[in-house]
């Protein structure tokens, strides 16, 4: 099987970004079979900004799959953001999955979730103490558990490849370059634990603008930070099975 996945996160389009993103995608349909967006599509998460994003990726010629990021939640217009994107044909995942059929007939399952913070082994938050702290960690735990279930559901569907699309990072490795103090706000090991419990072929995330592209989960699944400031290019293509 061959699958070509174009990915980028943190494009942060605002109302002054109309017409700015699409030209950067250039000949994407010629080099990729799908575009995966790893959240933070907008600056403030307004419906108007979502309309800008929708217009930029509509009728691209390949399926577009996304998760939302923290910025996409800021204006408390998440439902409208999802609606605008969905109306443009974008598949928005949150604790859910989609299966895409590649040109050669192989099937790639994408499990998507925003994820959340909490930190990593040795320096992570725990659900102890004040209700606010328990709510913070509880949200991450719930997100991770739902991700695990989603991956299990994909496993049952017998897809050829399983890809996890997140906004927050599941590992500290791809955060290298960020300030240590903010690691707990950039991701959580609970996400990696959920992924490793079921298995995946690739994990993509954004959020960490000053991070590093390549990392790996404790059980060896490749992790890639595709935040646009990290890639310094409009997108990157991850290709499975080129030598098959």
């Amino acid at each position, binding site marked *: 099987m061959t699958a*070509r996945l174009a990915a980028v996160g*943190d494009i*942060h389009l605002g109302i*002054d970004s109309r017409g700015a993103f699409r030209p*950067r995608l*250039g000949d994407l349909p010629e*080099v990729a079979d799908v575009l995966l967006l790893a959240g933070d599509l907008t*600056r*403030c998460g307004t419906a108007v900004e979502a309309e800008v994003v929708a217009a930029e990726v509509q009728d691209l010629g390949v399926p577009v799959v996304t998760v939302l990021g923290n*910025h996409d939640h*800021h204006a408390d217009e998440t439902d409208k953001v999802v609606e605008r994107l969905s109306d443009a044909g974008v598949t928005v995942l949150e604790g859910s999955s989609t299966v895409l059929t590649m040109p050669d007939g192989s099937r790639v399952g994408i499990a998507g979730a925003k994820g959340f913070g909490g930190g990593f082994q040795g320096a992570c938050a725990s659900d102890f103490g004040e209700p606010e702290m328990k709510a913070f960690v509880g949200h991450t735990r719930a997100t991770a558990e739902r991700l695990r279930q989603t991956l299990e559901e994909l496993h049952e569907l017998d897809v050829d490849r399983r890809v996890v699309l997140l906004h927050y990072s599941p590992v500290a490795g791809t955060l290298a370059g960020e*300030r240590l103090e903010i690691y707990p706000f950039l991701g959580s090991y609970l996400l990696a634990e959920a992924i490793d419990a079921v298995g995946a*072929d*690739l994990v993509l995330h954004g959020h960490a*603008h*000053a991070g590093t592209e390549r990392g790996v989960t404790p059980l060896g699944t*490749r992790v*890639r930070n595709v935040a*646009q*400031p990290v*890639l*310094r*290019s*409009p*997108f*990157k*293509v*991850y*290709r*499975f099975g*080129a*030598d098959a």
Partner: protein
Amino acid sequence: MTVPDTPATGADDAAMAHEYLVGDLEDVLTRDARGHEPGVHVQVAGGRVVLSGTVSSATRRREIVAVARDHLERHAPDHTLVDDLEVVVLDMPVEVEDL
């Protein structure tokens, strides 16, 4: 560890004020609609407030500098703003990684 028996003064106050200024400005840059750029870092040293990190466009850079300047004029007029921001240029070719 020895605990000082007198309140911090002088240089200690100034250091503390710097800490607060960094925190306040980072908070303002996060909340102001013109800000919202997560890659911006604030440092205070020698009477200068330095904005560094990456932003997505020259327009965003101007907006962020304007937000910071407004804040400093009101709360720390004795400080000079230094714009050391970098506009992210998507100048790298699209790469393909075979997995």
